[in-house]
């Protein structure tokens, strides 16, 4: 069975858009995290698809780097969230409003 590569690319673009919009409209910081992960995984899908279409290993190797970096990023991000919301009830971005102007 063959599937045209562009379907995967379109799917990835849609996932990326869902993630980007989600990050902009959701107010729960954890859900915003998940949206970032969705965006990064959409990029991974794009990279793997291009790697298959181009018959080149480079794109697949790049995916590993992205995964590792995303994991490291989430560790730090969750650490920051924990340190903030130990003193609060819910993890809502609207509560963070000291800095403005």
């Amino acid at each position, binding site marked *: 069975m063959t599937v045209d590569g562009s379907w995967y690319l379109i799917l990835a673009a849609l996932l990326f858009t869902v993630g*980007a919009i989600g990050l902009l409209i959701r107010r729960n910081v954890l859900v915003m995290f998940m949206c970032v992960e969705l*965006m990064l995984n959409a*990029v991974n899908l794009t990279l793997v698809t291009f790697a298959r*279409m181009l018959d080149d290993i480079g794109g697949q190797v790049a995916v590993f780097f992205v995964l590792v970096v995303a994991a490291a*990023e989430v560790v730090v991000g969750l650490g*920051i969230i924990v340190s903030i919301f130990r003193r609060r009830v819910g993890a809502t971005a609207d509560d963070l409003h*000291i800095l403005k102007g």
Partner: protein
Amino acid sequence: MSLLAQAGEQLGPVALPPLAYSDIGPILVLTTAALVLLTIASLVKGRPPAGFYALFTLCSAGVGLLSSAWLWLTLDEQGPRFAFANMIAVDGFAIFFFVVVCISIALAALVADSYLRREGLDGPEFYVLALLSGAGGMLMAAANDLIVIFLGLETLSIALFVLAGFHRRRSESSEAAIKYFVLSAFSSAFLLYGIALTYGATGTTNLAGIAQWLAANIAVSNGVLLAGTALLLVGFGFKVAAVPFHTWTPDVYQGSPTPVTAFMAGASKAAGFAALLRVFFSTFGVLSLDWKPIVWALAVASLVVGSVLAVVQNDIKRMLAYSSISHAGYVLVGLQAASDRGIAGALFYLLAYTFMVMGSFGIATLVGRRGDAEHQLEAYRGLSTRRPALALGFAVLLMAQAGVPFTSGFLAKFYVISAAADSGSYALALVAMLAAVVAAFFYLRVILVMFSPVEEGGDSSRVPVPFSAALGLISAVAFTLVAGFPITSGAFFEFARRATLLF
């Protein structure tokens, strides 16, 4: 055992790829220094003498500078070259940013030393994170592959997230950390999508490979490639805080501990511009007709928004944040010229800017006093009578940022604007000059407040100036004056010009 030895004989020796570790000397110096510092701090019992960590960091930055100088000398013999399977570019451009990053680390360590003890945050963590973050910035500047740029960017950013939230007891600090984290991750996703699309269009993530592909397929108008380029520009735009991707800057600069803000404004912006300039000027140079209008718009927006919004700020850190946005606009003016002169001007601007902005935030650190909270404009009233030298130094740095002659800021603005005019962008040059006039207003407002007398019952407490911070501020002011003085400034511009030629 003999079985394994036999297998080894049959298959022959392992061919190791040639890895010239000396080519990334400064990066290795900073990484090693961070690890050694962490090890020392965890093994030695009791508190080390005050200022040990800062001194160690200062020495590491010094060794980093020496190793950059040594690399610069090898360029004369061996010329610019690629290392690590074409992943790293060893050229004047990279070494220029090695120097800028080392300077940022040294200035940040000098300013942070007294700050951390004052706020009860003393420990090796700040310095370790700054060194690692700096190593990431250097990797970004030297990268010859989009994936390596991404790795450098994340090494730089992840350490900075922690640094932004470093002042645990201030909720502003944590808020700055989470805002920086979310928006930085958002922008990284855009950058990565740009990398993926560029890879799909050209079949490689290597910058030299992309340039070759573009040279061979010059007539192709490729939608995927253009989308990838645009997304890369968005990703870098976030990092260098160009309008309209600047929204995180004021909040994060205001909320972060002030020495961290200084480091962020210095090293992080320089590294972001290093990657931006290399990718767009060197790799996508063929596509300059496509990206020049967009960079033009970004530059105009940054200049106008940064200057105008800085005028209405009453918080000095927020004001400096907006002014750093307008500075990003000037560097973009240099890129928009897309000529050697423009890039050399942009590099000189970044060098001068690093000293100006880090010195300014260093002074804000001292005036902020215990609690890091006195950042209202009113806190500066009458500083000239309380601390004449501090007020004078701040005045010099602010005038340099405004672009007053005989300071490095004037020459930096002159170089980028004249490069823009040379390449025919007269409108952009005009906007840049008008933005400088608007910007001069709010810099002068701060100077006016500093030199006006304290009102009855106003704040007249002393501002302590520790030795280490004074050393950092003196070097920042001294560089600003020396690099702006007609006779001595030539050497610094020559450094930037040669860095551009040795691509």
